[in-house]
């Protein structure tokens, strides 16, 4: 057994764990942090993505002991203490960026990391940026819109409201390029 000291969503934990225990198993089975989920066994799907020391990691690819001394943020710790949503969470809701919601915790955490690096990503940059997270429901389009909207909200720019991707919303097709407007 190995010792792990870790802060998860603002709470400090000290545990004895088997060295082989994955971070995602530690979160789910030992800490009850079941908001983070497991979608595959080959690190492809990204459903288990969390933030470790400020960078997104697939928690199925990190051992719990590797998080020793570190700080983990999961989707459960993202909203504000008063219950108000993080801008990325809010944007996922506003843009209908989830259906079944299983990929959503990982997708939101990956999006947070992407926006920390690039607060104003183009559509293509979002597509590349969340490539490691699979979604089977949405076809990604509304997720991309949500990530861009969250970026605008977090950088203080206003949100120009339009129905995501729907041509009739403005009477003309929404070509890829036009959806990457730069905030003021």
């Amino acid at each position, binding site marked *: 057994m190995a010792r792990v000291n870790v802060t998860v969503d603002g709470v400090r934990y000290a545990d004895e764990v088997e060295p082989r225990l994955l971070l995602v198993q530690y979160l789910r089975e030992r800490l009850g942090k079941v908001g983070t989920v497991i979608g595959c066994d*080959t690190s492809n799907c990204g459903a288990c993505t969390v933030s470790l020391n400020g960078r997104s990691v697939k928690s199925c690819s990190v051992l719990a002991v590797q998080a020793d001394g570190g700080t983990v943020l999961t989707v459960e710790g993202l909203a504000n203490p008063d219950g108000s949503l993080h801008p990325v969470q809010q944007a996922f809701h506003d843009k209908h960026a989830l259906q079944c919601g*299983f990929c*959503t915790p990982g997708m939101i955490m990956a999006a947070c990391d992407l926006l920390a690096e690039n607060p104003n990503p183009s559509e293509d940059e979002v597509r590349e940026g969340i490539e490691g997270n699979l979604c089977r429901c949405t076809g*990604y*389009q509304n997720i991309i819109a949500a990530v861009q909207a969250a970026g605008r909200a977090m950088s203080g720019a206003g949100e120009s409201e339009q129905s995501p991707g729907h041509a009739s919303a403005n009477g003309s097709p929404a070509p890829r390029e036009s959806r990457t407007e730069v905030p003021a």
Partner: protein
Amino acid sequence: MTAVTDRPAAEIGQPRRRKEDRHLITGATNWTDNLTLPGMLHLAILRSPMAHARISSIDVGPARERPGVIAAFSGQDFADSQGNIPCAWPVTPDMVNPGHPSLAVDTVNHVGEAVAVVVGRDRASAQDALEAIEVEYEQLPVVLDMEAAVADGAPLVHEHAGTNRSYTWAFESGAAGTGEPIEQALAGAEVTVRRRFVQQRLIPSFMEPRSTVVQPVGDGFTMWSATQVPHILRTMLALTLGVGEHQVRVIAPDVGGGFGGKLQVTPEEVICVLVARRLGKPVKFTETRSESLMSAHHGRDQLQDITITARRDGTVTGLDVHLYADMGAYLRLVSPGVPVLGAFMFNAIYKFPAYRFVCEGVFTNKTPTDAYRGAGRPEATFAIERIMDELAHELGMDPLELRRKNWIRHEEFPFTTVAGLTYDSGNYEAATDRALELIGWDELKREQAERRRRNDPVQLGLGISTFTEMCGLAPSRVLGSLSYGAGGWENAAIRVLATGKVEVVTGASAHGQGHETAWSQIVADQLGVPFSDVEVIHGDTQSSPKGLDTYGSRSLVVGGIAVVKAAEKVVAKARRIAAHMLEANEDDLEFADGKFSVRGVPGEGKTIQEVAFAAFVAHDLPDGVEPSLDADATYDPENFSFPHGTHLCAIEVDTETGFATIRRYVCVDDIGHVINPLIVEGQVHGGLAQGIAQALYEEAIYDDDGNLTTGTFVDYLLPSAADLPHFVTDRTTSPSTTNPLGVKGVGEAGTIASTPAVVNAVVDALRPFGVDDVRMPCTPERIWRALQGSQESGRAPGGTVAYGGASTSTSDGSSGSEGDQL
């Protein structure tokens, strides 16, 4: 009857943000695998590494010795109690069903079949102990190819069955009286085009792996499961295991997608019940992704031999369809019925005078197939939309003109097809015109011509799919005529509580579709209550006891209408009470915006909340009226609904690398009236992604020994955001005439329509090189080989990488090329 209005009412038509979202975006979720019960034990399943073998011996004893292991069982331990996984769709009276034990007893018939189960104090202990189980297998010949399977003398998947052919299901318009005899059309044809298309095997790949928890309760049990069908599961488990249905409760908590893949009674669910009851302890089983890919049912997998006949002017005269449909090793819940559903859709939107459909269900040593998004209809739509392009090419006609010439015109609705269905409404002209406009068709055509002229290494292909589908499964009498084992109705109950808040109980069990939001919108309009005052209850056979669940784009067009019917009953009862309260005649009351008032006396009136309170206290109700304001309704649709649309794809194909990149994708869908455009949009996007994935990315591949070589997400290529284009979508509106909301289903439309649009575009790009088919998925390697094949052979058009070759009888009569063995 609620009138269909042109103007959407207050809530219907609004892009309401979903009620479902909050707990999903904050991680406060209720997935089955999140559930822990006191004393709960964990299961791990040993799966067959052999595609076909006799189990000579099995010893689970050594596993029992491992630390943390409570018990271990083989199929022998449950041989007398496990029954067979049920098949509810015996499509023909003589269909061969070999039986499907949940835990293999003496033979295994596909890789991944459950052979033994270990029960541990935690999951790791159970999984670690699997390696201690000793199994000896005696290898049997492996049957993988469907045509080889039905050849004389072929080795058998199930020796006791005596055949690899499960059934042959046939329809012929002359015999059915729905059209002319097909033989006449074939004999008299001016032009005949034949093709073989391959519907590759796909894996539904819901994101949440399947998980089941079972707790024994008295003589029965409670099951939590990641299922689309808690109600069907309850009935089927009771029948399979001999437990009273009233002692079985099934709960579908948060369910992470299904796409048909969770429309099943799975061996794993049955094993959980068997073990929990044997030990008297709650148990949990959660599959790994690799287990999921090899043991959860697959979809598609057909060989389609299609013959289309036409006059020289392009008028189609006949369609002859022969299918081999791979059932895999066993028949599961609706395996045999899936390809048969396609029987009604091959003729699609076109006016064929003659039609024949023959489907042979075949056993192979592969994972069983069953419903996957579209279930029979994507396969049909692909074949007809592909062969319409091939016919157009043969005739030298524009593919769009060929379609226009043959489709049902707007003024011809309702239209009874050669397959015997009556399409309620549609406007193919309007959807097509809008799609052409949105994509900039003429400009793309010019660019294509220019690229062809200058031999640009990157060619542009333009693909069309003008599809329809049948959705809203289903009128019970139709299901009865197809020998399906259940009806197609749906149930809803509405309770207006003492405080005026509303509970809606639905039998449609959602797993991402947004029923809570959409049903709230419907009820808000029907009862004139605020959207936020409506709570939707679903997914637990105890709280929503009646229902037939969610699949086949049925929830809104069947379940949603049940909600309307229940609301109408609530309003009718409220009207009686309100008339009593207002001392007025019922007939003089009008009900608008949640308030009953006497016609011509504005201002006075009683709100539905006031009526609900009066019904609750019951101090002064009219004679014969029972306290409480509630009602339930069961709705059985009179017909399917028939969404349609036009999907257009512009694809760039690099002829040097074979790489295909979608440049523009436009779809204009007509699904009648829309309850929530945001949800509809999401359904279309997701459907497109899955349909495009079939065209370009996904395929479940078995090696010669029957091993699934695409058994992880490393090898089974689910598209990421970087692999998909931006979709441009729009709608036209032809309200359904068969239900009071004028709605049609949308859950499967995108998947059904998009695959042929993409493949038609790929083939269109390669047409100048003599290529007339590329087998799905159209990978760079397949495209590149198609190009090499056509260039190296120097043959006239007809060269193809279609499975088993292809032929065009008006050319030299030779059948295309050698089969593609990729």
